[in-house]
């Protein structure tokens, strides 16, 4: 098959920063805000998204020649929902505490736009290797975005990182950072920061 567009390696790298799903494409906002109260939850969520996105991309890529255009979305949804159910059950079996903390946000991966968008844009047109690389790249990008927000919120809100104390004992925990408003404000400011970084860099290349 003739490669039109980036190679698997380029797709992998693209997903991490240049096309970061959260900061660049503004996809998957719901888990980004909801499970970033601490690093552990954020990383579990990223793991679940990696699993679902990887499996869904591989399956979609394998059956891409058999797909009827108008049944496409139906097949994607079926695939994603199946793998999300498996991920949900797996967490409930082996990481029960985490599964209770994440609650409805694991099943909500089904309607996470990141996954259906990657199936549609990439996996249904590319070979298995490209699709797999794309899935891993996008998931790492998603995990990095979640980690950046969760780090800010956990360090300021609890004075700890991955439940390890990093701030001095006297640090007054900013409870607001763990509460919903903290999520919105942190993401808003980080998004602004990412845009500012992008703008100043493109200004430099233009000059």
């Amino acid at each position: 098959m003739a490669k039109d567009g980036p190679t698997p390696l380029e797709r992998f790298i693209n997903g991490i920063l240049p096309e970061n799903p959260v900061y660049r494409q503004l996809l998957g906002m719901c888990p980004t805000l909801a499970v970033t109260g601490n690093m552990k939850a954020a990383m579990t969520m990223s793991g679940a998204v990696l699993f679902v996105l990887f499996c869904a991309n591989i399956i979609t890529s394998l059956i891409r020649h058999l797909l009827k255009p108008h049944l496409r979305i139906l097949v994607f949804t079926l695939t994603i929902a199946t793998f999300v159910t498996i991920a949900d059950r797996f967490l409930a079996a082996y990481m029960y505490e985490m599964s209770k903390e994440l609650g409805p946000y694991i099943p909500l991966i089904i309607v996470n736009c990141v996954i259906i968008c990657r199936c549609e844009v990439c996996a249904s047109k590319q070979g298995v290797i490209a699709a797999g690389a794309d899935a891993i790249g996008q998931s790492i990008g998603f995990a990095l975005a979640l980690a950046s927000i969760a780090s800010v919120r956990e360090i300021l809100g609890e004075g700890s990182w991955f439940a390890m104390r990093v701030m001095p004992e006297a640090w007054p925990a900013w409870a607001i950072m763990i509460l919903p408003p903290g999520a919105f404000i942190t993401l808003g400011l980080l998004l602004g920061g990412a845009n500012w970084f992008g703008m100043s860099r493109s200004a430099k290349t233009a000059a």
Partner: protein
Amino acid sequence: MKRTGSRCGGYIGQAWLVLAMALLFGAVLAGAHIALQPRIDENKLDETYGQVPHLVRVAIGETGRFLSADRSRTETWETPGGKIAYKAFAADGRHLGWVIKAVGDGFADKIELLIGLDKRAEIITGLYVLAQKETPGLGNKIAGRKWKGKVWADQFTGRRTDVPLEETKAVPTKANQIEAITGATISSNSVCGIVNNAVGEFRDKMGTLKKKD
């Protein structure tokens, strides 16, 4: 799109992939269910049973002798109304006490508690917050050891159940007073209320408990 044969054949030609995938995924899910469900059920039981030894331990003072999550020493008893109580035994078969699960409204959402009682339900031998969604940094101190470096719920240990507990913002002076968490009086009050309600109901219905098989 070429029509193959009859109209019915056309539908199958269109949908065979979806049907095949539905069957395949159904099989995968069934496999996952068979493999994982026993563990999930186990986890749910462990959540309650695992706490039973800690909650009745204090009544007898034998700290080292209980293994956690030793289910052979816990029996499940039930009232005619379907309320469940866990009956805990010591290694030598003596009846140590009861553990009940209580639920009530907190400040933000429901609070779930496990309450340990001695065998006549006269003394509270332990309190564990199973689930809560109180305000982080304030009300959520009812769970965990973030309150003045101690476990807030440990205050309930050793309290008598014949007088209702009440929370106080000052240093407790009476035997039935619980020191409230600063800034979270409603959460503290809710826990006291839930304990009072549940223990009261348990004392009323204790006689009707029967062993559940």
